[in-house]
């Protein structure tokens, strides 16, 4: 039983070891097949756990100590319950599909083997994150998924922009991680343990004695969540992270890793519920993030950037829900979002793949040339081979060229926009209803964000699939192969029906999660008014996007209709200048400070002082050495004077007596 529980982690590990050490002599199909089947096996074991043990076996302590110093004892222990099983299924399920998709997408890449090693490492790390039974072990997974993210964003590292984006992701995440680790330090000092059940058991008592400490812990942990789940102000890494291969964007930067913050807060809900002040902060930050990213997504041109900001926005929804205590809604949205956003990303990957068909010979260089942060809009008459295959202005009319991709994209888009009966409708509705009941400000922000959502996804669909092709590439795009389309179909099915996880009335997920998060966190009853209102609003916005963009673009260089917004348009296009602020103020200050310390203070000040002491000694001795004249007779004179002085001393002291 115990071994079975860690099998989901072991399978991908085995896969990555085999691929890492023997992959050189294996064919692409074998490498990809092995990696995918290992994730598939993990999925099967997770499913088996789900069906055999119902709520999961709970704590499984492997009794292998990891860190054991004095009272600090962190073993390799895993907590398998309803929540972690849900996450395990999402991670391995979506992950498995994306692995299969990647076999097609990464075909012919010279570093194919390495890609699947990283992907398997990611699945294993993510499973450690969701299965850990202590904050510290969770942190291990937390950092390791960050590493995979770093490696995969910079996968095509020969383009320095990709490497740069990877480093940025790692560093920004590290900022959040420091908050997380400080939270862990404080938890241990406060509770004397790091294991979830032990900590949670003591929260009530501690809250009665020392409430501020619980607030501090939760806030620190939340800092970690803002990094990993791309919340204000640390969301800046996620748009850049799109530099990675598209399956990576789908798996790591949409479906799984970025939801780690939400998972963590749900897991630690006992702490959060005990700290209402933190909850308010969390809800507001989530709602603000949803609003900010949603507004930015309105203006982006890069097909993946739109989805990236959309992801940030949807994560904001989940965080806001967690902040309002609606943990079930949060996890529900996490699950549906994992399906439809992975679908959207993979479909976008299929579009990009199709766009690159014409310039197949230069595929690698084109793809690795993914735009850096805030790339300037492409010139009006872009040359034949400088066409950016990710710029929506170069697309258009793809619905006839890539029919299957078009259909699944629409399904994903409608799910994102919150149209019934697609999955996103149900989960978003729960969050918005909860906000209406609990926090009007959060409700307002989320409502506007939901409207934005419908508009930007409508805009994207129109720009990509309708109208006439605006570039040679778009005119010659072809549908992707079956390795890529089959996972798309699967995900499309899930994106359609995933709502049944927690349909009003059935509330299966709610009941399922009750043992973990408690009755209070269950979703509110279905609010038909809210649901209707938002459906109508979404329809209106989709139509608005259609009306506005149907004929807006004739050729790639046309101005976007939203440019009429003037300064506000630029403000949105540049993502509220948050990233600009980081790059131009904080990073520049750091550069300047670092150069000052290194060149001036260290070399001039500290080393200068040390060398100064040396120089001083040398100078003093230089003046003293003049005493040595080298003349024998002057030495003789000195001797004589010395003798006279000594004699004089004795004579005088004798006569004094």
């Amino acid at each position: 039983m115990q071994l079975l529980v860690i099998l989901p982690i072991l399978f991908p590990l085995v896969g990555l070891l085999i691929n890492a050490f023997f992959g050189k002599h294996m064919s692409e199909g074998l490498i990809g097949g092995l990696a995918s089947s290992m994730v598939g096996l993990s999925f099967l074991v997770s499913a088996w756990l789900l069906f055999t043990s119902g709520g999961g076996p709970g704590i499984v302590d492997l009794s292998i100590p990891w860190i054991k110093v004095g009272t600090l004892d962190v073993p390799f222990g895993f907590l398998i319950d309803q929540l972690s099983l849900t996450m395990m299924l999402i991670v391995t399920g979506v992950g498995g599909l994306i692995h299969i998709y990647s076999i097609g997408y990464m075909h012919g890449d010279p570093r194919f083997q390495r890609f699947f090693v990283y992907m398997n490492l990611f699945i294993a790390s993510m499973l450690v994150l969701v299965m850990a039974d202590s904050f510290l072990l969770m942190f291990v997974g937390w950092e390791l998924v960050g590493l995979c993210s770093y490696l995969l964003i910079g996968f095509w590292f020969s383009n320095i922009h990709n490497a740069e984006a990877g480093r940025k992701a790692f560093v920004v995440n590290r900022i959040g991680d420091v908050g997380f680790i400080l939270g862990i330090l404080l938890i241990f000092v406060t509770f004397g343990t790091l294991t979830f059940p032990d900590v949670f058991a003591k929260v009530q008592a501690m809250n009665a004695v020392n409430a501020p400490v619980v607030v501090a812990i939760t806030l620190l942990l939340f800092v970690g969540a803002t990094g990993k789940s791309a919340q204000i102000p640390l969301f800046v890494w996620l748009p850049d992270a799109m530099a990675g291969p598209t399956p990576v964007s789908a798996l790591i930067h949409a479906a799984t890793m970025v939801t780690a913050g939400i998972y963590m807060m749900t897991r630690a809900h006992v702490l959060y519920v005990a700290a209402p002040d933190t909850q308010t902060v969390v809800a507001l930050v989530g709602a603000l993030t949803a609003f900010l990213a949603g507004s930015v997504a309105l203006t982006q041109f890069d097909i993946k950037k739109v989805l990236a900001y959309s992801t940030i926005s949807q994560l904001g929804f989940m965080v806001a829900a967690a902040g309002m205590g609606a943990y079930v809604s949060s996890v529900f949205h996490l699950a549906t979002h994992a399906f439809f956003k992975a679908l959207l990303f993979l479909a976008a990957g299929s579009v990009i793949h199709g766009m690159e068909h014409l310039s197949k010979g230069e595929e690698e260089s084109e793809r690795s040339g993914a735009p850096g942060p805030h790339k300037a809009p492409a010139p009006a008459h872009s040359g034949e081979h400088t066409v950016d295959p990710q710029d929506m202005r170069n697309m258009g009319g793809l619905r006839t060229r890539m029919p299957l991709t078009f259909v699944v994209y629409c399904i994903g888009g409608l799910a994102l926009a919150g149209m019934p009966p697609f999955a996103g409708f149900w989960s978003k509705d729960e969050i918005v209803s909860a906000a209406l009941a609990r926090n009007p400000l959060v409700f307002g922000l989320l409502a506007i964000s939901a409207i934005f959502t419908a508009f930007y996804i409508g805009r994207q669909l129109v720009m990509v699939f309708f109208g006439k092709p605006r570039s040679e590439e778009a005119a010659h795009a072809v549908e992707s192969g079956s390795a890529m389309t089959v996972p798309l179909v699967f995900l499309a099915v899930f994106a359609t029906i995933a709502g049944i996880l927690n349909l009003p009335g059935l509330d299966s997920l709610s009941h399922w999660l009750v043992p973990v998060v408690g009755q209070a966190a269950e979703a509110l009853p279905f609010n038909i008014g809210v649901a209707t209102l938002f459906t109508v609003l979404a329809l209106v916005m989709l139509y608005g996007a259609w009306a506005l963009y149907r004929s807006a673009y004739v050729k790639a260089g046309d101005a976007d209709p939203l440019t009429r917004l003037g300064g506000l348009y630029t403000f949105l296009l540049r993502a509220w200048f948050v990233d600009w602020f980081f790059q131009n103020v904080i990073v520049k200050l750091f550069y300047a400070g670092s150069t000052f310390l290194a060149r001036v203070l260290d070399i001039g000040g500290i080393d200068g002082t040390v060398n100064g002491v040396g120089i001083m000694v040398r100078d003093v001795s230089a003046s003293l050495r003049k005493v040595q004249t080298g003349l024998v007779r002057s030495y003789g004179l000195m001797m004589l004077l010395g003798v006279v002085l000594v004699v004089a001393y004795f004579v005088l002291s004798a006569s004094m007596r």
Partner: protein
Amino acid sequence: MLSVIIFLPLVGAVLVALLPRSATAAMRIAALVFSLATFALSVALLIGFNNAQSGYQYVESVDWIKTYGIGYKLGMDGISIWLVMLTTVIFPIAILSSTEAIRDRQKEYYALVLLMETATLGVFLALDMFLFYVFWEFALVPMYFIIGMWGGEKRIYATMKFFVYTMAGSLLMLLAILYVGFSGGTFDLTALVAKNSAWAASVPLFLAFAIAFVIKVPLFPFHSWLPDAHTEAPTPGSVILAAVLLKMGAYGLIRFNLALFPEASRLFAPLMMILAVIGILYGAIVAFAQTDAKRLVAYSSVSHMGYIVLGIFSMNALGLQGALLQMVNHGISTGGLFLIVGYLYERRHTREMARFGGIWGKMPLYGTLALLFVLSSVGLPALNGFVGEFVILQGAFQANWVWAAFASLGMILSAVYLLTFYQKIFLGESRDTANDGLRDVNTREVVTVVPLLVLALVIGLYSLPFFSAMGASVTNLLTVAGLAVK
């Protein structure tokens, strides 16, 4: 047993010196064999080591200068065991990595390296203050020659600075040792600690010891000899310097300052912690601005050693054990980074990071190995650095959460400068045609780094044996010194 382990490398040094000058291969092999034999002996010590015993084990004691209570006394406990192991692991690796780096006067070189091993082992195993001092100064000499004879362009400047700087500190320590020895009636460290006497002059004595040790560590602002020495030293010299020599300072802080002067330690702990935190942040920030890869790694040492001092002066079990483990970790990851940088230098004869770029594409295996060391140094969980840093931070947090919070910012900074380092050399496109056709690491080079990586992984995933061997001794030290045991 301990004497054998200490003087076996010396025997090797004599043997190497007796070999004919032309038999360079024989010298290399002899040096490697003797260092490996020393390692084998140290493994035997490890196996026979009793974790539960808090006192010294394998003690050897012979009278030396009886009139003054000076003895030849050796012993090993949980505080020194991992440092001894680190030393015996690092030296064979350093010797194996010398093949390319050291081409001339190999006889002198290998003899000096083996002498160096004798001296450092002596430092970690001596239980008599006078004997400790002899080994301590003795360790300075081979390194002086290694940097001065096989170093880079500014080697004379660097080696003079290194020698004079550390010597200046040592003289203060000698005075303190003489004072303590004569007024205490013995130079036997265990006897002195057991007396637990409150020294009237404990503050100046503490300072005299502390200055000698923090220069060696080096603690901000006494670090300025380190970048020069590291940059000019040949690769194996840098490895030994970083992995072993710096640890002598940290070891001294525990063995002398904490054990002999607990009261003064408590008095100075806030100052030391502040300096450590400044060192962590300062070293990291300055490392970021470096253009020379080796200087960058040298400054990263300043930052990492700051964690160790922070742990030591948290003066609780977590901080101290974390610091002891981190000494080993630092030896592994920084030693590894110096090897990595050195191998590139041997191929390209430059360390300017701007001259590289895209090396991972050209040398895939090398790039992967380098990445692992970078991650170990960044403190990524599942590798060694994280365990040490976390335990230190937890200890420091118990002692003073403000400094722990500031120190944790070093985690961000280490990611910043190390990933920048990695990116400049290994990622992007090559910025120099001289990088074309670089050959990947050969078997010998892989063999030098793989043991370190294995250790990094083992410590990262299973630190229990490391902590349990040091637990009893650390607790004992804290109890005898009357410091808080948590």
